[in-house]
């Protein structure tokens, strides 16, 4: 008894003993299990030219068709892009762009005619695109208060510190606070179809359904006040510095006003890369068989509010149809074809290697 308790102490490295007299009772023989003896059944792949050959060919054979499929799909997507920055003196928006800054309150309008060579079937998505606009800047990305946007009254009155220095003006909270909201894109784009007969038909643009459903219904919420009037709810807050209108006047539709304005929501989803597009409107497919946007001449009318010249940014309007894999982007198809071909090629190389040198081992091995 005593001896055993003493040896319990030994385990702690006080005094280690395993004399031959130590344990006739306690057999220390290790268990003969596959795990303990490190003999678990195992698959032991050996990477040689011979063994990996099939993998390369299979990858090649799978990838090339996928790539071709993707490429074709992407090519079937129609896309039209028009740059209306107005850098050029020849550009219709040159004048607007030249003397425009954030401080202007009066909007400047310019019209840009363009022509579609192909008819656009199905729904057409209308994007605005910005280039050289670093929406992914670290401090910019952080400069928002999600809690405020989620309708939290407290955050509305006292925005998070992250919003600084766009959190308050004269001790009045800004709603919505932060740099992202402050710099919201505020050009208005309108599209007119120039009928061959000379009339200009405005094309109906749907402004809902452009944001993520979860954003619109879960993430973004208007603060719920005592009354349902948004104006009353936002009483005591300031509009962001660069905004022309307060947040509760973004739209007339109460379902698309305030924080749940979809243009706002879309803007608040910061883009990943400095060149990006954001969904602006959807041109719904008409019920009849006619194409959504028939071939012909169109006019884009821009309320030029958004200055980009200071950072050499560009503004674009994009019309695009989409497929199951998103917008037009041939890259993935090409990538698949390339990787597939490379695999195939390497497979051939390995085949050669295998034939030339692989047998050497095998003969050495198998000859026995």
């Amino acid at each position, binding site marked *: 008894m005593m001896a055993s308790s003493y040896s319990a102490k030994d385990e702690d490295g006080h005094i280690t003993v395993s004399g031959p007299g130590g344990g006739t009772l306690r057999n220390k023989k290790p268990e003969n299990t596959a795990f303990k003896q490190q003999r678990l059944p195992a698959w*032991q792949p050996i990477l040689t030219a011979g063994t990996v050959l099939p993998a390369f060919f299979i990858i090649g054979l799978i990838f090339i068709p996928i790539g071709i499929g993707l490429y074709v799909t992407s090519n079937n997507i129609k896309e039209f892009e028009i740059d209306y920055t107005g850098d050029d003196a020849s550009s219709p928006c040159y004048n607007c762009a030249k003397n425009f800054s954030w401080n202007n309150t009066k909007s400047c309008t310019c019209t840009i005619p363009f022509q579609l060579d192909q008819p656009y079937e199905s729904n057409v998505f209308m994007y605005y695109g910005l280039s050289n606009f670093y929406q*992914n800047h670290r401090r910019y990305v952080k400069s928002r208060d999600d809690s405020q946007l989620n309708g939290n009254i407290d955050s509305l009155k006292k925005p998070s510190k992250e919003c600084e220095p766009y959190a308050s003006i004269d001790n009045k909270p800004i709603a919505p606070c932060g740099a992202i909201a402050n710099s919201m894109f505020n050009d208005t784009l309108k599209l007119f179809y120039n009928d061959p007969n000379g009339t200009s038909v405005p094309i109906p643009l749907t402004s809902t359904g452009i944001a993520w459903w979860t954003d619109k219904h879960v993430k973004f919420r208007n603060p719920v006040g005592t009354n349902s009037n948004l104006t009353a709810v936002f009483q005591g807050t300031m509009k962001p510095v660069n905004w022309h209108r307060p947040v509760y006047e973004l739209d007339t539709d109460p379902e698309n006003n305030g924080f749940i304005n979809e243009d706002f929501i879309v803007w608040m989803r910061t883009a990943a890369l400095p060149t990006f597009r954001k969904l602006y409107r959807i041109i719904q497919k008409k019920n009849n068989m006619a194409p959504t946007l028939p071939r012909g001449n169109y006019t884009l009318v821009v309320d030029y509010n958004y200055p980009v010249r200071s950072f050499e940014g560009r503004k674009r309007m994009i019309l695009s149809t989409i497929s199951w894999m998103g917008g037009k982007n041939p890259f993935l198809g090409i990538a698949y074809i390339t990787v597939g071909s490379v695999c195939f090629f390497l497979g051939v190389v390995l085949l050669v*290697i295998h034939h030339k040198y692989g047998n050497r081992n095998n003969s*050495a091995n198998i000859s026995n």
Partner: protein
Amino acid sequence: MARHSEEDAGMAKAPPAARQRKKKPKEIKTRTVHANILHDCAKGAENPNRHYANNKIKTTKYTVLSFLPKNLFEQFHRFANVYFVFIALLNFVPVVNAFQPELALAPVVFILSVTAIKDLWEDYRRHRSDKEINHMDCLVYSRAERRYVEKYWKEVRVGDFIRLRCNEILPADVLLLSSSDPDRLCHIETATLDGETNLKQRQVVRSFYDLDCEFDPLKYNSIIECEKPNNDLNRFRGYIIHRSGRRDALYKENLLLRGCTIRNTEEAVGIVIYAGHETKAMLNNNGPRYKRSKLERQMNVDVFWCVIILLVMCLFAAVGHGLWMFQYGDNRPVFDVLSPEGTILSPIMSAIYLFLTMIIVFQVLIPISLFVSIEIVKICQVYFIHQDMDLYDEETDSHLQCRALNITEDLGQMQYIFSDKTGTLTENKMVFRRCTVAGVEYSHDANARRLAMYQEMDSEEEECMSHGGTLPRRDSVTSHQSARVVLRSQSTKSHRRTGSRAEAKRASILSKHTAFSSPMEKDITPDPKLLDKVNDCSSQMDFMRFHSQPMSQLPSDLSDIIDFFIALTICNTVVVSSPNQPRHKVRMRFELKSPVKTIEDFIKRFTPSRLTSGSNSSSSSSLITNRSSNKGCSSLLSSPSAESTLTKLHEEQSSGGLEQAFSPIPPSYDGKTSWSLEEGELRYEAESPDEAALVYAARAYKCSLVGRLPDQVIMELPHLGKLSFELLHTLGFDSTRKRMSVVVRHPLTDQITVYTKGADSVIMDLIKPPDTGNSKGKRQKKIVCRTQHYLNLYAADGLRTLCIAKKILSKEEYACWLQRHLAAETAIQGREELLFESALRLETNLHLLGATGIEDRLQDGVPETIASLRKAGLQIWVLTGDKQETAVNIAYACKLLDPEEELLTLNADSQEGCALLLEESLHYIQAKFLCNPSGPTTKSFNTNFSPFDIYSSSSPSSQSTPFLVHRLGLVIDGRTLAYALDKSLEDKFLAVARSCRSVLCCRSTPLQKSMVVKLVRNKLKVMTLAIGDGANDVSMIQVADVGVGISGQEGMQAVMASDFALPRFRYLQKLLLVHGHWCYSRLANMILYFFYKNAMFVALIFWYQFYCGFSGSAMIDQWYLIFFNLMFSAFPQLITGTLDKDVSAETLQQLPQLYVNGQNSEEYKPYMFWMNMIDAFYQSLVCFFIPYFAYADSDVDLFTWGTPITTLALFTILLHLGTETKTWTWMNWMSIAFSIALFFTVALCYNASCPACYSPSNPYWTMQRLLQEPLFYLLCFITPIAALLPRFFYRACQGTLFPSPVQLGRQLDKLPADIRRNILSLSRVKVGSPLCPKLPFLSLAKASPKGYNKKDRRSVSGSKQGPLLQTDEAKRSPLQPTDSDMHLSDLYTPAPSEVDTLPYTKDNPAPSGELQTSSAADSEHLNKTIEPSDVNLSSCVTSTPLPAQADGVQLSMPPDGAPQCVRYTRNSEERLKSEHAVSSAHRTEPATERPLQAASFSLN
């Protein structure tokens, strides 16, 4: 942990701290202990012992309160932790923060808390065991109750009287004051302290010795003064001051140490001297050792590089950000947010801020979890090593112990092994083999035959017989030189089938037989001649005694014989016990006065000369311990011989009965002996196995030791019956004197006789120079001469030699000596030195009786282990204290030296001589091996053949360059070694030593051993392993990179100092070749993978900086960023790091060459780190840009784009691990599946949990949405494949075009078992076959002409400088063959080391047609066995590319100038004759004393 210093001890007795400090100076030298009972009433303040630590032990590090601060403080000693905390804190600075500060703390807190919990648990365990120990009971005398009362251990204080009963454990260091034993002895077992299981005797303090009545604590009023607590177990000095003022010295024999167990003694009483943490046991108790492995050192270098990379990346980003800001000028864009205060930051300021931000963002590059993961993996590795059945020794029921937990991977990187000989290579189980008495040799042929029979018995148990190494040597003992040819073929055969399972089985059977005091060692078949003489002699003596004739009339040769056996029997410290009750001391007591202690006593007792052999008054204290030692069991197990001994014993008994009449011993006593004999034979417990072997040997001649008491030794002689020798003194063995002596009074002649036993070199010098005048003197001279001759023979046969001598003292001489000896004994200052001098005075002018040859059997599998370790490219040095001849012969027996190779022997007598010798040998080596480039190099390129390039010049720290290792053996003796280790010569010594294949240092002291290891380690920058079993190896074990202790016969000191403790030497093979290799390759791969993984992940964010204005933004959600390492990708690598096996254990053991992989750090070379980094950057580029282009100019938002990248990175990283994983068990699959599942589960939950939290990413519903997009899946499909394509392709090509040996080993693994066996056997046979193409040397040979020319020039000019040689070698190293010319066949081809380890190469028919007649039959036989495989061989040759083949053939031609068949000759004359050009060295060599060792530097 344990408190070591006095300061700590002082702290423990904290309360009266102020007064304490005052007293301290006074306390410095000694400690004074009063009995507590005198001060019982005055509790506390008045008690003089109050300052001493009490017996409560506390080994815990923490208390409840101190845990947190103390543990954190300790953890912050690790630099990495400080770094991570720094980064986490940096996050709290608003300008630079990258993550949510709280979140950034998470990983650090996680890591810290994991470690803290581990520490807490360990501490809790310690606390529990402390508590358990503190609450053990013991009996303490209580003044109040006037009896001993039970108290807890922790209540014991210094100065308490405690009573101990048999089998109790001592609670503190106790001074023995009384013992129930009539001899006033107390036996203790110190296994817990030093692992020695034999009983040790402790004596009652002398002043209490004569106490008749029971010790009464109340009467005690002495004061003890002794040393301060220290950790030296073998030292205790002090004195006890009685009230009378008398002082008595105290020795270590009086002290019972805490932790020992009382045995054989009914009751003992003592006073506590040291308690608790001040006990010697506690002071000795060090925590586990912490070493840093080579791999970890290398890793730290790369961690450092990571830091550099990190800083460079941050700097780059900072500059980029500054420029980006600058380009906008004063026109600040809307997205460039102002500082919170609304001020505008200048580009420079924001660049500086950004630099700090980037450090936070990129912190993952320094793998935070790496350190924790490595620890986890190492613990698992240690667990698996522990669990290995092959490393378990049934005999001792012990398995390998890993005492150092963090250097497992070092085992796979060893380059030099330094081994002790005795007990490490050999069993340290001595078998008496031969002896010479009075110049006549008794060869004990029958005994030799019997031993051979044991051998056969073992070998018959398996069909194919033979035991590689030990057999030839054993036989050579019996049948000298003639048997050698036959033996050779035998051992070749045995070689071919080493490593089989049958062998392992046989080994285990054998080990049962060879258990200590197995019949093999105990039963010695006496040499009939000698037995006759002994009988003759003793009967004559009996006759003479009967007729009261003086014994001196006995013929001197006969008296020598009887004296020889008396010396064998009594000149030792063997304790006799009976086997059934191993701890029961056999006692028969003759009434004797106590030994002489004073001069008066001496005069009184020695004047009347009469036969003293009084009546018996033995007290039989039959304390039976419940321990049944397995020694007893083993002797019962071995039935056949046990029976024979039993019958022998019966005979003895009956003859004893006859003699009874003549015996002076009363019959009453005899009954008792027969009782003890009936119980079984007597068992001898010796401190050293030699002693036991000699006692058993003497018993075979019926001279048996019957009992030993402190003052007398009883032995039984044929015809004479039991004789009691009064033991006057025992001068114990020590390593400086190398001898021990006993001074006894001979009962028959009544003379005072000194029997001395010791190393031959010492004893021979002490022999009284015979006066050549008379015939007696001539005879004596002849005896000495002959004995020396036989001694040399014994040594040549690898036997340990001991000389036995005696000396008869006249009473005057004795009195004179005794006076000074007693003075020495009682001295307090310098007692050891005085005793030593006293012993020297006594041991002079001895009369030589004879010499013994004891065989120290090689351990099982030693030659095989050495052979395969050497094939593994390990240099093995043997450092031994044995004499040169013995060591050389053992070295031959264990295949360390090869009869084929030349032997350089360095024996010098002076510094200059040594310098000259080294110079000459260096010249010789250069002249011989470097001048004829075509020849010997190919042969001698032992370790440097291409795939196994040992000293890789590319390894970071290693300055060492490939150095030719020749077919040379170096033997150096201790004295020369001392000179060679001098600063001025060490470089030369190393230059010589490293070019020799094996090095043998004889007669080396422990210090020299450690110096050699240190020298090699520091100068050659190699990994060293030291293995040993005894206390003399401790320093060497501690110095080496990895110290291995053999938990064998010689106690546990080596084990305590070691990092790994093995039960047997042969386990080293599996430990190094298999576990070492695995641990190394696992960890190396894991570390590389870690670096890769983090770099790859961080690089993703780095690329992104180019697209976010270098603003430090990350597209990866900070949660993923922080937990990616810690959770998502953590498990698979742990599993792979723990379980991956590149090659199976069998193949690793059969192809030791694969070990070179670790030695060269081939799994983890510095360039690999960079290759991995490049690969990581490539992969991250792919993982970044495929999504980039796929989402270019789309409406994707930051984190919806970042999440697929995270996913892709995870897939890529896991797939990468997959390509690197060699074995896929279900655990690998599970872990990978778990990782992926974990990521998606966490992502889905996280993305669904809170719509407005987790600023700034706010990833609500992101993953859910992604999973609905086909694009996501398309990306997941293509990216990992594109990312891993190059690596995968490279691996495939490498596997075919230039597979590493390890890969070949894996291919071999895949083959069916029988084919594999075929190939492996082929690889062995090929060694001897001349056909094998030596492909590995191809490019070397091509390059050699130029290289050699250069070298020659250099070596002429700079031969005085060792280092110059190295630079030459450095030049050569790039010429090492590239991997491209090796393939499977290389692996099986000649590894020239194999050529070397098998000494039979040259006997085989070589193309040059050089055949040796003696071995012709032999090689014929060999050839036949090769034949079938030869065919394969040639086919394998033809399948190699043509040019390679041509070169190979050319190279395999034997060297023209190479010396053929060099042989080590034992005959010194021959050696001199065949001396080479360097005989000048011999001239300068001063002659050594011993004629046969004189031939010093000889190259034959």
